[in-house]
């Protein structure tokens, strides 16, 4: 039993009855000094003494002994362990008992600090992987290169011709203006309020990100779908239904494609999804999902995943470090995930070459979600998995020169361009 609140409750109740410590101690047959230790949570209490105190204080014993706040003890202990100077953890219960208000406040502040640390980590991650920031930094460095190099020439070439001087000064002015425009774009980017399209992920997407796309406990039967759903806050009926289907699908695929057998088959099929589907006699979409949901291992290529509906809205995304995905819509129309809608059920394999030169091997397929509706086309969902791992490279496939999306793509003459490159 956590003794924290027992002593404090005894004291509160005694004071409420306007009884002195010595009177209560005498009534239950203990010394006043011992009662003082109990009331200050410095001595545990149980058995006959507790029964006697409860009777004397005219309360049920459970009112004194139950509901001790173990959660608060654990929370404060966790906070204490994150500190560089660890306080007296062994006296946490005493602290809660003596200063319950301060203890709750400290727990609340600790929770806020933890939340802010997580936000900071997410922002740092964004700084490292956001394609807009990456492109902006590239542009800024190019502007600075011209300015630095040209200014250096003007500074160290006293006999430069008037024609060259005029041209170089003009170049510095042009690049300075571009630099200022690019810097302003970056400031605007950070100042822009978060809109629904960038701030509100699809619940299924958010859920899988949180669970890191692999559920070993569900696969082993240690946890259930219901337990996992219960752990998700802010659920609506729609999101619950989507998550439930998603988890059931994951569990079914994991059952049909057991991890060990799947790993062995990956080696023997050179990670070819179609060959894996034939090996396990299962639809290729199941193989794509299994590949994307494998635990990280040096023995198998790491695959990212993207799923979208017929409007192009991204429903599920798993990034890999070498290949960023747009937040929730507007990816490059050259990506085969969109082409897959033209021929549902037909697997497509393609290599994308990004403006950075990174080559990405992709496998895509669109599948029918529901077709039992009169006079309406079937609802489709398209899936693409991707990797930069050479073990999954395609034998003969000229790359598609693609981008992330138009606003951050420097391919100026692309026929698919629908909006300007933001840094042009």
């Amino acid at each position, binding site marked *: 039993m956590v003794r924290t609140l027992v002593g404090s409750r005894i004291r509160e109740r005694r004071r409420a009855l306007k009884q002195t410590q010595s009177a209560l101690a005498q009534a239950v047959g203990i010394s006043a000094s011992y009662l003082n230790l109990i009331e200050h949570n410095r001595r545990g209490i149980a058995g006959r003494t507790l029964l006697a105190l409860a009777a004397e204080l005219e309360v049920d014993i459970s009112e004194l002994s139950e509901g001790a706040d173990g959660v608060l003890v654990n929370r404060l202990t966790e906070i204490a362990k994150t500190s560089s100077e660890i306080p007296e953890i062994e006296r946490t219960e005493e602290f809660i008992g003596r200063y319950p208000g301060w203890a709750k406040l400290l727990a609340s502040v600790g929770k806020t600090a933890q939340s802010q640390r997580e936000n900071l980590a997410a922002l740092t991650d964004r700084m490292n992987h956001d394609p807009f920031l990456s492109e902006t930094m590239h542009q800024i460095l190019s502007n600075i290169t011209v300015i630095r190099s040209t200014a250096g020439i003007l500074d*160290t070439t006293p006999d430069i011709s008037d024609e060259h001087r005029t041209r170089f000064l003009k170049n510095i002015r042009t690049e300075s203006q571009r630099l200022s425009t690019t810097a302003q774009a970056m400031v605007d980017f950070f100042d822009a309020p978060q809109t629904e399209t960038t701030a509100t992920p699809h619940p299924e997407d958010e859920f899988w990100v949180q669970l890191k796309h692999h559920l070993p406990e569900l696969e082993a039967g240690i946890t259930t779908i219901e337990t996992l759903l219960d752990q998700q806050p802010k659920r609506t009926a729609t999101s619950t239904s989507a998550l439930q289907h998603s988890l059931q699908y994951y569990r079914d695929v994991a059952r049909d494609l057991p991890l060990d057998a799947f790993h062995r088959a990956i080696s023997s099929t050179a990670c070819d999804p179609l060959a894996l589907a034939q090996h396990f006699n299962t639809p290729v979409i199941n193989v794509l999902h299994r590949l994307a949901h494998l635990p990280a291992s040096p023995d198998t290529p790491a695959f990212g995943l993207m799923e979208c509906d017929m409007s192009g809205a991204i429903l599920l995304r798993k990034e890999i470090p070498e290949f960023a995905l747009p937040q929730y819509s507007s990816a490059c129309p050259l990506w085969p995930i969109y082409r897959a809608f033209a021929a549902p059920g037909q697997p497509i394999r393609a290599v994308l070459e990004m403006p*950075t030169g990174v080559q990405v091997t992709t496998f895509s397929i669109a599948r029918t979600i529901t077709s039992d509706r009169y006079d309406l086309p079937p609802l489709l969902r398209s899936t693409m998995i991707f990797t930069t791992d050479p073990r999954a490279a395609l034998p003969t496939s000229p790359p598609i020169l693609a981008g992330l999306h138009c606003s951050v793509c420097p391919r100026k003459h692309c026929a698919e361009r629908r909006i300007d490159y933001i840094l042009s």
Partner: protein
Amino acid sequence: MAGKILLIEDEPHIVEALSFLLEREGWQVVAHSNGADAAQVAALRQPDVIILDVMLPNKSGIEILREIRANTQTAQKPVLMLTAKGQARDRAAAQEAGVSVFMTKPFSNQAIIDTVRSLAQ
């Protein structure tokens, strides 16, 4: 004359500055801005040193470098790669493709001159 340099770069102001700088040192500079046929141009022009930007329209510098190394006419040519991306994975990709020297923007004029000179020796 010091020799011939093929400068594969799509930023015209960088081309102007580097051309001026290297021509003053006695180099003949041939500039080319399109990634699609850059490797063929290298084979045709037979430069002493190739300066290659990583990000180019139509084809990445890494891919061009692979083509240069795959062609017996250019396989041994020294290649200086320029990039505004100094990230470890870009550097690793360039090294894997056979780069001679990898330099990140912004660079100093003297560093470019010294590097080109040492590559040509």
